[in-house]
């Protein structure tokens, strides 16, 4: 067998016997002192990397996520099916042919929230079960790359979910036509999705490390996502009202934007700690 590794490094040999050993049970050194926090280490690692390299890693992670989802179809179809089924259930449970205004906005956002939870719960499962976390941690890359990639992955999931769920909502439940409201509604949904993706990624990274991840994920995520549902529903309510003469409620749009920003920063600050031992 003559295969060799190009550029292999290290000292030659491995056959010589050496006494490089010290006697076992030597004096115990004190607990590791002068340790840096994961964030500090990450900053140092990140400082040594050009931004282009981090972007390349984000792209690689995102590509991997989408490939795995395309091949397993474990998240997005379930999310979309859940949303459509929920609209059907509402249709019969409310015993109404159509809804509008506050009620319509509430049904839409609550349904999207619970459908999103399904995706959040599975966001890190392949990484945890198949060693993806370890492989990532062994690489000399900025840990934030995984946060960005997962947020983008969840945004992609939510985009596809809404591509199915919003027209289904228009057909099954909504009284007023979606046509005029759609451009503004897309904007409100996008703001809500950003918050769901940031909070969902943070919570999923925390929950996946535990044995009760399927339970802990929703339990942690739901209270944090309630303000997004409130903001999203209040902002989109005028758009879904009969006649929908006014635009989205600006106050609630600003609230959503602020909430997104705060949790985006929290996720960025905490993510390293969740990944490392």
């Amino acid at each position, binding site marked *: 067998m003559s295969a060799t590794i190009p550029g292999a490094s290290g*000292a030659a040999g491995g056959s010589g016997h050496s006494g*490089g050993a010290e006697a076992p049970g030597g004096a115990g050194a004190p607990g590791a002192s002068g340790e840096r926090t994961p964030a500090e*280490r990450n900053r140092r690692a990140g400082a040594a990397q050009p931004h282009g390299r981090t972007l390349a890693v984000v792209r690689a992670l995102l590509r991997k996520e989408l490939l795995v989802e395309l091949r397993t179809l474990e998240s997005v179809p379930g999310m979309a099916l859940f949303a459509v089924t929920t609209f059907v259930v509402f249709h019969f449970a409310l015993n109404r042919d159509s809804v509008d205004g506050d009620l319509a906005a509430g049904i839409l956002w609550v349904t999207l929230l619970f459908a999103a939870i399904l995706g959040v719960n599975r966001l890190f499962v392949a990484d945890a079960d198949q060693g993806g976390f370890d492989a990532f941690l062994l*690489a000399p890359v900025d840990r934030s790359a995984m946060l960005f990639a997962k947020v983008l992955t969840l945004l992609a999931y939510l985009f596809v979910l809404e591509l199915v769920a919003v027209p289904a909502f228009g057909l099954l439940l909504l009284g007023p036509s979606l046509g005029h409201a759609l451009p503004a509604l897309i904007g409100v949904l996008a703001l809500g999705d950003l918050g769901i993706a940031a909070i969902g990624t943070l919570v999923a990274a925390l929950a996946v490390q535990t044995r009760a991840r399927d339970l802990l994920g929703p339990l942690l995520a739901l209270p944090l996502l309630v303000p997004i549902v409130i903001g999203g529903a209040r902002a989109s309510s005028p758009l879904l009202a009969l006649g929908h003469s006014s635009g989205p409620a600006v106050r609630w749009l600003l609230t959503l934007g602020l909430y997104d920003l705060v949790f985006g920063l929290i996720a960025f600050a905490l993510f390293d700690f969740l990944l490392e031992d």
Partner: protein
Amino acid sequence: MTAVEVEGLARHYGEREALSEVTLSLASGQTLVVFGPNGAGKTTLLRVLATLLRPHAGSVRVLGESLPGDAWAVRGRIGLLAHEPLLYRELTARENLRFHARLHDVADARVRDVLELVGIEHRAEEPLRTLSRGMVQRVAVARAVLHDPELLLLDEPWSNLDPAAVERLEPLIGASSARTRVVCSHDPGNGLAEADLVLGLRAGRVALLEAAADVTAEQIVGLYR
């Protein structure tokens, strides 16, 4: 030069002590083979050296860097072959290796080379879940050496491999790889043959630490009694 320097290392999981008072030193280019029954702490030791677990007491230096403080400087210089292949089952061998190549900033040409070296190029486009355990182990070896690491941490590397695969992979991860290696093994014969230094662990403590030339197979077997 010393590649691995451990002094008074302790690591616990909750109340249970997985490693306690472990002290050893391994020179560059040498091979340390770790023996011990299940639960003795072998895998924990590898994971501490790989920067995946933090030591709870003691000092650990790997490739001249102190852990966990300077772990960032060691990552990328270590190749870990663990029980789990650290590969995605739904991706093909090539897709998995390309993904790891991006993480380690390695050119695609190197992916092609290692696929050929481990003899998996003819199955490189098949999802990993369709491959046998031996084939997956070959891909895991390719992943572990993809970035040409200075230190190899190998947890029972020859398991699931047939003799032909062992012969093929030996230059990559075996004694002739010219790399510093820490190998966990349950095989006294082959383990002793490839070792420069032998560490025996029992219940997380060092039960044996000697140059391989001074260790007999009976001593290794004794660790398991």
